[in-house]
């Protein structure tokens, strides 16, 4: 069992920052990055194999397809249960925070900027720790 980490953000600088930090953490040495929801969905559709698990670090505010819309699309897929999502956003708006509860895939709500400490805490999340081989 393994898990692949995807970083999704329309901001190139943020993608660079997140990739740098995540790769230093125990989440993933080599995360895959995307700058749009559409590209992420295409990747999942073509690369998903039975038994694969994905952790998506998902930005909310993106053009064309925002984080919520991507979540909706993923919910309709046959592999919906293989996707775990951590919403990563600059938003400190309560409405966004509350909305997280509507999606079973979402395991965490993270306020930017991501830090190494946040990544390590996430790695110890019950639904992740086993997949990552971490003994908490």
């Amino acid at each position, binding site marked *: 069992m393994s898990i692949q980490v995807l970083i999704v953000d329309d901001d190139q600088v*943020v993608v660079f920052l997140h990739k740098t930090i995540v790769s230093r953490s125990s989440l993933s040495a080599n995360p895959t990055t995307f700058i749009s929801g559409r590209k992420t969905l295409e990747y999942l559709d073509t690369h998903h194999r039975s038994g694969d698990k994905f952790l998506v670090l998902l930005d909310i*505010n993106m053009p064309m397809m925002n984080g919520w819309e991507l979540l909706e699309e993923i919910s309709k897929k046959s592999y919906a249960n293989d996707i775990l999502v951590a919403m990563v956003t600059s938003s*400190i*708006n309560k409405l966004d925070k509350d909305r997280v509860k509507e999606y079973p895939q979402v395991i965490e709500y993270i306020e930017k900027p991501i830090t190494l400490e946040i990544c390590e805490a996430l790695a110890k999340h019950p639904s992740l720790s086993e997949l990552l081989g971490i003994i908490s």
Partner: protein
Amino acid sequence: MTMMEHECSSVLVVEDNEGDFLLVSEFLKEAFPKVVITHKKRLIEAERSLNEQTFDVILLDLTLPDSNGLESIDHIAAVANHTPVIVLTGFSEKDFGIRTLSKGVSDYLLKDELSVSHLYKSIIYSIERKRIGLRLVQSEENYKALFQMSPLPTWVMDLESHQFLHVNEAAITHYGYSEGEFLSMTVHGVQATPTTSNDHWPDSVAFGLYDGLTKHKTKSGRVIQVQLQSNLIEFKSKRARLVIATDITDEIQNRQKIVHYNQRLQTAQEIGQLGYWELNLRTNEVYWSEEAYKILGRDARELLTSEQFYQIVHSEDLAQFKQARADLLNGNLEHDVEYRVMCNDGNIKHIFQRTSVVNDEKQNPLRLEGIIQDVTERWNYIKEIEDQNLKLKDIAWIQSHVVRAPLTRLMGLIRIINDPSDLQLDRAQLLDEVLNSAYELDVIIREIVKKTEQIENQTTNL
């Protein structure tokens, strides 16, 4: 009339001559087979008999041993009561005969000319005439009682002099004058404003009936409004007018009060911009107050039934409106509803309506009544505030996402730049990104300040 009604069953014959009595009694029996004849020869006996019993008719001979001519007539008439008296005489004397008729005698018959049919006719006519006469007396008494007992002031006035000739009890009570005072006055004496004979009484003969309104003054000086109804009559052989006066002072005052209340109600509705309406559930007819028409922006003729009203209610609100009405008829006593109506000028108005049910004595719904109020202004105001709230939410969201985006980027960048362990980093490029993020943040803050100013301007315009 049948013969039976004309039957004469008892006759008193006052006659001293046996031969004449025989003749008369034969004729009587032939004319009235069942007749009972009482025969008296003297006036005194006849009087005694009349005191003891009554007869259908009295046949009186004028030459009696104890009385004669007019004297006999006077005596008999005094005790005859209502029984007709027919005089029988042996000689023709026209003047005398006529004089006897005025004394109360019904007929005057010559013995020489007597026959069965003659006698029959005379008796029948006499009885019938008496009966009619009695009825007239009776009905005159009834009319007198009606006049006196009428609760409405009633009087008889002379057609020429306008003098009061007769007044009833109600007139005396209502006007305060005694009967004597009335009879010494003309009708102009009770007029509140001075009148001449031609003012109120159109030409006496030409108009049998006269109805009119006038003002009278009672003895105490109180002015009353009266409705007069009158008719021409003959009173004690004079041409006169019978007048009934109805005091309508209270009625007029009440009518004025109602008009006054209605005006106040209408003013109150105008000030409060409240319209009143009623729906008769039996006829489906609707009443709308003036103000209600104004509120609905409609003409009175367009909204006579519920169906016509439904046509102006906004189609999206119609279901809710009908549901509210159904609830009312199912036992809810009062209901508030808000809906939109389409005005003739194309505008949409927002209406608040409070409706209540009026039941009949069997607790069945009889009608609906309610008020309507134009709440368009209030509604627009609320709408505007809601719009503003949306804009404010928008600002809050922008602040949360857009403002914090470059900010969090700055925080992340500086953290990495500050990490001394990472030797591969191009710090100069990262510092460029720091500057870009700072500029981006500045643009966003300016944008927010601009939006907030727009809302402030709108608020002051409200």
